[in-house]
Every structure is written in structure tokens, then in C-alpha cells.
């Protein structure tokens, strides 16, 4: 589904990614963890070219997104994205947030898009909020709308960029529940997260990114029970000493 080869990304003189190789198969849930500034979000943002890779190759569902001939807008409909700060459209109702993509990009008739949109809102537990505006929702509700918005385009993969990091602790659970449901349904997911519990329970594979490279990559049980990389050991001990 996603193949990343020798991905490098620099911001000016700052080298953020120094050669990332990663393959994500259909139906797989991959969690990326790492300290802040390690480049884990940048990997995600290179997958749908919100960041332009400096060099290397990123192939999403057979489309080489680093090829200028690729219609990136089309690829983006196949790779939905959920942001840390939700980024809902504040001037539109919840339902309009969800239907905008299908109507404008996929040219789905409005009535059909709205019917589909209401189903998706029901799926994330917000059927009664369709006509509300984002401002009236809690953080957890906003993020669930954002997930519905990403799902509305029937993407082949969803990229989650620290989806629970901006939430009050008591609201994290409701968002993770929705994500677990998606994972069980077989959605391909790449999740940058600090939620170790989620990674342990849901991920097929956990990846530790630090200093712009993948330092360790393993199934969750192995990853957390038997970390080999000293940096990862250090990172995990710091994370778990707080929990």
C-alpha cells in the first residue's frame, strides 16, 4: 500500500529525515513513536506530500507521489489525514465538513454525499451533531468529526498525526475507541502517537524513529517487552516512568 525508499527531508540546513525505508501493507496498522523533533510527523506528512520530500521515493497505492506527473490531489483522496489540531472548517457545519470532499473532489451528488456523511457521523458516534458547528463540540468530538471527514473519501489508508495529543486526558479514550474500530474493520492505518497502550493493543508493527532514521521496528509485544536499541530503551523508560 505504501512504500517509502531512502526518504530524506531537509528544512534548509536542518536534516530532519536521513533515509527512511518503510513498507506498509494493506490492512496493516503501523504505529510510529519517537521523541519530539525526531521526524515522525514529517514521515507522515511526506506520504501525502504535505511536505515535499527532498529525495527518495514514496509510492502510495501504486502512485509515485514524488513523480511530478502524479496527480497529487487524487492520491490525497486515497490517503486521508487526521491532524493533531483537528483542523475542522469552522465556518461549516459538521455535516458540511464531512461532505465537502466527496461533493467537490469526487463529484458525488449532494443528497448522496449527505446520506453517506450521516452514516459516517453515526459510525463515530456523532449522528446528533450533524448540523452543529465545530466550535460547539468538545475536542474529542472534533477529532471524531475529523476522522469521519477523512473516511468520507473512502481512502485506502488513513494517516493519523498525533490524533490525541491535543485532547484533555478524559477525551482521549473516545477517539482511540473509534480508531480501534477502524483497525478491526481492516483499515490500513499509519499512526504517529504517544499512546503506548494503543500501540501495544492495536498495532501490527511499531516503529521507533529518532534522529531522522528508523531505529527499531518490531511487532508490539517484542517492541515493548524486548527493546534492543539503547535509545528506544531510554525513551520507553522515560515514557513509562510517568504512566
Amino acid at each position: 500500500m505504501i512504500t517509502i525508499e531512502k526518504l530524506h527531508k531537509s528544512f534548509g540546513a536542518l536534516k530532519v529525515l536521513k533515509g527512511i525505508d518503510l513498507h506498509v501493507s494493506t490492512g496493516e496498522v503501523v504505529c510510529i513513536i519517537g521523541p519530539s523533533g525526531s521526524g515522525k510527523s514529517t514521515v507522515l506528512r511526506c506520504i501525502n506530500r504535505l511536505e515535499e520530500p527532498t529525495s527518495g521515493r514514496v509510492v502510495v497505492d501504486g502512485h509515485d507521489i514524488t513523480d511530478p506527473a502524479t496527480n497529487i490531489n487524487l492520491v490525497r483522496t486515497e490517503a486521508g489525514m487526521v491532524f493533531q489540531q483537528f483542523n475542522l472548517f469552522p465556518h461549516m457545519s459538521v455535516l458540511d465538513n464531512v461532505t465537502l470532499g466527496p461533493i467537490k473532489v469526487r463529484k458525488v451528488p449532494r443528497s448522496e454525499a449527505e446520506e453517506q456523511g450521516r452514516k459516517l457521523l453515526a459510525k463515530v458516534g456523532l449522528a446528533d451533531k450533524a448540523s452543529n458547528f465545530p466550535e460547539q463540540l468538545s475536542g474529542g468530538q472534533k477529532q471524531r468529526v475529523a476522522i469521519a471527514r477523512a473516511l468520507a473519501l473512502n481512502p485506502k489508508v488513513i494517516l493519523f498525526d498525533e490524533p490525541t495529543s491535543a485532547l484533555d486526558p478524559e477525551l482521549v479514550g473516545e477517539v482511540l475507541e473509534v480508531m480501534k474500530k477502524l483497525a478491526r474493520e481492516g483499515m490500513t492505518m499509519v499512526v504517529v502517537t504517544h499512546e503506548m497502550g494503543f500501540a501495544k493493543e492495536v498495532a501490527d508493527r511499531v516503529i521507533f524513529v529518532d534522529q531522522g532514521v528508523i531505529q527499531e521496528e518490531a511487532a508490539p509485544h517484542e517492541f515493548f517487552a524486548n527493546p534492543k536499541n539503547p535509545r528506544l530503551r531510554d525513551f520507553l523508560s522515560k515514557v513509562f516512568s510517568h504512566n
Partner: protein
Amino acid sequence: MAFQFEPSVIIETLPMLGRGLVWTLKIATGGLGLGFALGAVAGMMKLSRSWIVRKLAGTYVEIVRGTPMLVQAMFLYFGVPMALGLRISPLVAGILIIAVNSGAYIAEIVRGAVQSINVGQMEAGRSIGLTHGQTMGYIIWPQAFRRMIPPLGNQFIISLKDTSLLMVIGVGELLRTGQEIVAVNFRAFEVYFTVGLVYLSMTMTIAFVLRRLENYLATRTTR
């Protein structure tokens, strides 16, 4: 001879100002309509990725902002036709001057408002497959426009008052009409007082309408 205030002159003057008022309204609406279009284009140009496009818009803004409107008006009405060998009507000249002048200030208003929208909005728009232009149209502009309303109202009021400067190029607008009335009845106090009142009622109307629009748009997102 002692000055004696004649309130009746105000009543007599008002209908005589009608013709000038129509000119002022024509120039203000035409000029600001065109000025908004010009400002929107120049404002977006200032956000362009291309250096030359940004520079082009920046130069326009600098020149207009850095020269008096009276000079612009006289240059455009007396200077340019001489160089090009064509005459433009005072009405067209008036509309053009207000448009070019307000457009420069509106460009800065537009640029600032668009820039103030969180980059996450552009990213979210692009992430659902919208093009840059679609995201601008459906996501960024509707939000930015709301933020433009207070400074736009300010600019509309300034430009409306600035139409009075156009009397120097012979546009028969409100102030010039007042001047012509004074030339006949010599009641400068009453006539210019009335002219001022008419300007004030127009600027207050603009302020009122924009405040209503702002409130309307604000309540729409928290229904």
C-alpha cells in the same frame, strides 16, 4: 453685519444637493467595487510563490500609498490623457482614481486576513483532495472575509470621504455641488454644514450595515 444662522437654508439646500449626491454614490460604489476586485487580486499576488508577482503587487501598493490622492487624481485626469491623446469623462476618471487608490489599501487588508488563517486549514483542505484554488475558495476566503469586514468598513468610509477631493478635477460630486450653491446664495455656514451632514449619514450607514453583516456571519457559526 452680524452673522445670522438661517435653518431654513438647510432645508432649501438639501434637495439641491441631490444631483451631487448621486455622483458621489456612483463614484463611491463603482470605485469601491472595482477597488475591492483590484485589492483582492493584488492581495493574493502579494502571497504568490513567485518573487516577481509579489514585487509587482508590492510596487503598486507602495506607489499608491506613498503619493497623495490629489496628485494621483490630477495626474490621471490631466496628465495621462495628455500623454495618450484621449479624454476620459470625469465620472470614469473619478471611479478609476477611487478604485486604484482604495485597491492598494484593500490589498493589504486582504493579504493580512488571508495570512491570518491557520495553515492547518490549507493542509486540511489539501488533505481531502481539494486543489490550492478550491481550498482558497471554499475554506480560506470565507474565513478570511469575515476578518476583512472591520478594516474594509474603515476603508469604505475613507474612500467615500475621499470622493470629495475629486472636485479638483471637475467632478460634480457632493462637495462641488455645495460649493456651487454657496456661489449663488453666499450661505457657506449652512450649506457646508448640510454637506457635512450628508457625508455623515452615508458613513454611518456603511458602519451600521457592516456591523450587521459581521454579527450575522458570527452567529452563523454558533447556531
